[in-house]
């Protein structure tokens, strides 16, 4: 019975290649997007670290900047 399921009446090469291509595309897109996100987040943290205390205080007054920093430290 297991052999029957796996062989898919002779169509296994077509079916499994279609599903594999889909899952590979998903993985590639996820990894590319995640890498871009981490890269941009790291850039933000580095830039923020290079600010003097006055500029850092001004930047921190924006809630979104604080959240980006918090998110970066959590990751």
């Amino acid at each position, binding site marked *: 019975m297991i052999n029957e399921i796996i062989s898919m009446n002779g169509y296994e090469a*077509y*079916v499994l290649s*279609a599903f594999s291509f889909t899952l590979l595309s998903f993985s590639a897109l*996820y990894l590319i997007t995640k890498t871009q996100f981490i890269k941009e987040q790291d850039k*933000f943290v580095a830039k923020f670290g290079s600010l003097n205390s006055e500029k850092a205080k001004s930047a921190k007054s924006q809630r979104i900047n604080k959240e980006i920093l918090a998110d970066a430290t959590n990751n």
Partner: protein
Amino acid sequence: MFKFFEPNKIFQITSKAPKYVLLLFIIVLSIGLTEALFLSPEDYKQSDAVRIMYVHVPAAWISLGIFSSVTFLSIFGFIFKNKNFFLIAKSLAPSGFVFNIIALVTGAIWGKPTWGTWWAWDARITSMLILLLFYAMYLISWRIYETEEKVFKITTFITILGIINVPIIKYSVDWWNTLHQPASINILSKSTIHSSMLYPLLIMTAAFALFSLLIFLMKYNTELIKIKNKGLDRL
């Protein structure tokens, strides 16, 4: 009304949502794959080759849905001069592009055992290929044009031209004699697909929709951080 959707206000949600969406996606995809590969019945005519439908059809639906959303967001962004609409549209496009590729490739794989050919210049397939070209033009425009005003104008123009192709894709199987079969699922009339195949298809569609939501959220957060990076440069 649009102030509610301001990036500064929604980042708190969009930054935390991806991990929950990823978890939900994995659960729904696992159920969908089990149904699609093992539990759903084979077709009386196409036998097990019909299982390709569970990745091909949701990919095609979502790529069309995303392109339509990108178009409306670009038009609204242009009319209301709202940059955030463009940002949302830009973040949606990559997953739409990948779903379009998946629909074409899995369609070609499905074509070989059912039609005896990988590719045919048939109305449905050709119009899907044209949609892929519009996606490519849209994404390339964001990369090559530097000024915001110019990129907003050009991307809106591309999507308006591209949206003309969407009803052509939908009705191509009715308007012309094509190799591609007519729609089996209709919202307004009775569907010709059995529930044992319809439910796995809907589950896989939900999984694909969750994946596009996940990519959208990650991409949108990246775009927001990019803007904030530029803001730090100006301090």
